[in-house]
């Protein structure tokens, strides 16, 4: 059961077509994404703590574009805000934002996992 509101079906479809409609490859991609994401989230957390704007920005950017590829639009948007903030070197409220990002990621992860073939 997917949560269509969390994942934009259209984007997923596009992704499928781009990759030649191979469900195995899609699954592989999703796996890769789900593997990468927590690391990115951790980086972001650390970066906020260390006030390292560059790392925060890059991590947020990566997570954003990946999430967008999979249609996790809400997550992507929230990542973008964090990225923007980091670009401007502002850390006020960054931790709060990160919490929202993590929440969104949790939703997205659930939705994507649901698309994987039962392993």
């Amino acid at each position, binding site marked *: 059961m997917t949560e269509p509101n969390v994942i934009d*079906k259209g984007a997923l479809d596009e992704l499928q077509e781009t990759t030649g409609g191979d469900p195995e490859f899609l699954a592989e991609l999703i796996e890769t994404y789900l593997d990468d994401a927590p690391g990115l989230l951790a980086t972001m957390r650390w970066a906020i703590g260390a006030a390292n704007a560059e790392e925060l920005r*890059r991590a947020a950017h990566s997570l954003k574009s*990946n999430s*967008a590829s999979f249609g996790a639009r809400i997550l992507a948007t929230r990542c973008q805000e964090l990225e923007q*903030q980091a670009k401007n070197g502002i850390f006020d409220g960054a931790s709060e934002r990160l919490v*929202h990002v993590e929440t969104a990621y949790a939703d997205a992860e659930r939705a994507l996992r649901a698309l994987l073939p039962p392993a």
Partner: protein
Amino acid sequence: MKFWTRSLMIRLVSYFLLLSVVTVILVGYVAYTQATEALKLAVFDRLSAVADVKQGELNRWVDDEVRNVVLIAELPEVRAQVRTMAAEPVDSLGYQTAHGVLASYLSALAHSQADLQEVFILSNVGGKILVSTDPAHEGQYRVTDRYFTEGRSGTFVQNVYPSPITLAPTMTVATPLLGDGGQRLGVLAVDLSLKRMDQIIQERVGAGASNEAYLVDRLNVFVSGERFGRQEFPRGVHTQGIDAAVQGNDGAGLYTNYAGVPVLGVYRWLPDRELALLIEIHQDEAFAPASRLALTILLVGLASAGLLAIGVFLLARQIARPILAITRTATQVASGDLTKRAPVLTHDEVGVLARAFNTMTEQLRSLYEGLEAKVSELKQTEEELVTYKNSLEDQVVERTTELQKAKEYFESLVQNSPVAIVTRGLDGTVVSWNPAAEKLFGYAAAEAVGHDLDRLVTTDDLNAEAMRYSEETLRGDRIHAIARRFRKDGSAVDVELLSVPVVVAGQPVGTIVVYHDITELQRAREEAESANQAKSIFLATMSHEIRTPMNAVIGMSGLLLGTDLSPDQREYAEIVRSSGESLLAIINDVLDFSKIEAGKMDLEQAVLDVRECVEGSLDLVAIKAAEKNLDLACTIDDGVPTAIIGDATRLRQVIVNLLNNAVKFTEQGEVVVSVGSQPLGDQRHELQFAVRDTGIGVPPDRLDRLFQAFSQVDLSTSRKYGGTGLGLAISRRLCELMGGRMSVESTPNQGSTFAFSIVAEAATGVTTHVEFSGEQPQLIGKRLLVVDDNATNRRIVVQHAHAWGMLPRDTASSTEALGWIQRGDPFDIAIVDVVMPEMDGVALAAEIRKHRSARELPLVMFSSLGRRETGLDRIEFAGYLSKPLKPSNLYDVLMNILAARPARGRMPVAARPALDGKMAKRLPLRILLAEDNAVNQKLALRLLGQLGYQADVAANGLEAIGALERQHYDVVLMDMQMPELDGLDATRQICQRWPPPERPRIIAMTANAMQADRELCLAAGMDDYISKPIRTDELIAALGRSPVLGEVIT
């Protein structure tokens, strides 16, 4: 004469007159001559005729007389008597009787005929006058007279001869008296009256008063001499005519007559009579007609000439008048009046002349005017100069007196000055040394003057510097320095010295040095400097020292919160974190404030993007605003420059401060940031920011205290709302540092508007993001439905949509929107606010879906960040927008949704080009993929694999360059965001290291659809770009554009 040469008219008329007169005279003369000739001939003819007539008459008379005489002689009585007389003796009676009879008979005859002057009979023998009508003559013998001698034999006429008796001219006719037997008895003689002859001649000579006819005998004596007076011509009268005639010629001619009068005369010799007949007429009279003719001609001619002359005169005048008019005008012009114009009186050559003259005059006039203007300018300048010169002279006098006073004044100044003043000559020796110098250096004037200054007040090691100063001064430089000098007693004194060359009349004559004892000041300065330095160190250290642990506290508590915690632990950790953040905020404020107060606040001067700054600030309060259900929005006027030179951090600080306050003090409604700008010329702008909220407002009596440090509106607010009270004070000072002001307007319970301005230069040539100006091709004509209860948000969305060429319709009411949908109004896309009073966005979306499917009408959710929306399960939203709305986001969402769906009704999934697995064979490119993101890497490799390419991978820019060093690639797919060395820098390095033929084609993979970013890529040296996420068609197209460079031997 001069008069004559100067007047054309006079000359013309004169010449004409002359000519006419000459002509007339000529004509008259010729006529006269001709007429005279003619007349002459006529007169000659006439006179000849008359002469003929007279000749005839004369002869006829003579003949008549002859006949008479003959008759008488033949009269028997006469004869008888004569016989008697002849026969009888003289004294006989018979004789006497015969004599008496004859005498009376003869006298009766003489009386009856006046022509007979004397009739007498002569005896045959001896010629004795027997009888005569003049008895005195009886008895005289005329035996020698020719008439007698000839008359005895026959009738004989003795033409005019002088009578031997009387000596008067006489003409006698004699005839013999014959007896019956024919014997000569005697001779009858008759003296003819010459008077009668003269009369005959004179009669009917012809008309003409001066006509004269007369006879002249062969001795040039007038026949009727009494007429002419014999005495006058003692030797006879000689005239041309008379002489000629007397010589026997007949003729005619013009000569002077006996009276000296020029006459026309016809002369004739009458041989029968042995007389010259002359008929003369005065020339005057004869030629009178000719004269008259000539005179008439002359008169008429002259009169005509006169008339003609008048005519010519008039004509000439007519010609001359316009010329004269021109002349007059010329004279007037010559005498200075350039406005006069010659009258153009005719259309002929003179008229042309007049016009030409006028043209010339006009040109002269304008030329002259121009010159006059120049001249008056010059005059004016001259006058000004004179005035100025005068005033200068006055000034000079003034100055001189002033100078004198000044001199005295300055001399006393120097003497009384508390500051040491030393003057030196060109050689460096002291010339003057004022009392203050004595005091400062301890040398009396007498000790100092004449010595070298540097030797006096410096030691050896300072000498060099001092000498350098001296030299420089002499060269013309001013020295202002701080140095150490020594007194007479050897003690040191810190001085501020001013050394200045003294120049008189362009020549340096020495220097003047002024010393100011600054020992005290030096000390004070050093102290202040070290105090200042301490302050800076304090601030810098404190800044760092304080923040570090604070960041650690915050960061760690954040990390802590990321772990598994029990609810209590979580709560405590939250408190730690939020307290830490608050404390950090306070510390930041305090430090900022001190910095500003210490004047150590430096503002950056860098390019900052206005929109990013504002939107970034909004981001920071977005969550809080969302929690309080406040709408956030921002509007930026068109005139505001995209980028300015300034300090982004500080500007954001100010905006965030205001926003925080606004959000803090607003319970419902909205917070809107607006930005406007006023150009100040020369690229500078005054940017005007305003943060308007619908909050609790500020009471008017507290407004002025707002910006004071450490003041809150009242203590209750500080307790309720927290805050250091420094925020506004800092913000205001930051504004002032940025060249602007801050102010506030507020109505309690309605809201406040905090406005501030800054002055900054627009950054030219920088577009950090595209302006979305103008219509966007993919959006033109698309119909947008906006449903949001917040008017500001609606306005912003609609404004942008309009600008991009869309057709937006907006409403605050979900019901109204539904109404439109149900009515069937067409829409291509709808933006729906989630939080709305009547019907929230989710519910509205559900309702809409009953009428339009997701494909027909894609929906975009517009929500506040940080909210977890519930009930979204069944609704498919095509896009998400969060507040505060950023145009870039709106643009992206619209483009994503609408550009990918070309038209309503069509299947949105565009046909994709079939993946051509043989592409790599056709176009064997060596490809390097530079991408750090694992997912993207896999995706890209997969795509390339499907096209038949085996690409190599580099995880960042450095690895990519390393790979290029190792081997040649045709194409590098370069991700923009990479660690170590990002895409742009890597590209720049590649372009530097490898020249075009060896360089691979670099294709950027960028997530930014902005034109400006693409331009950035191209500027860095990229050859092409494709967007991320990677689309197959774009990749194929980009690869297709890449040439196969082949192996390049390096």
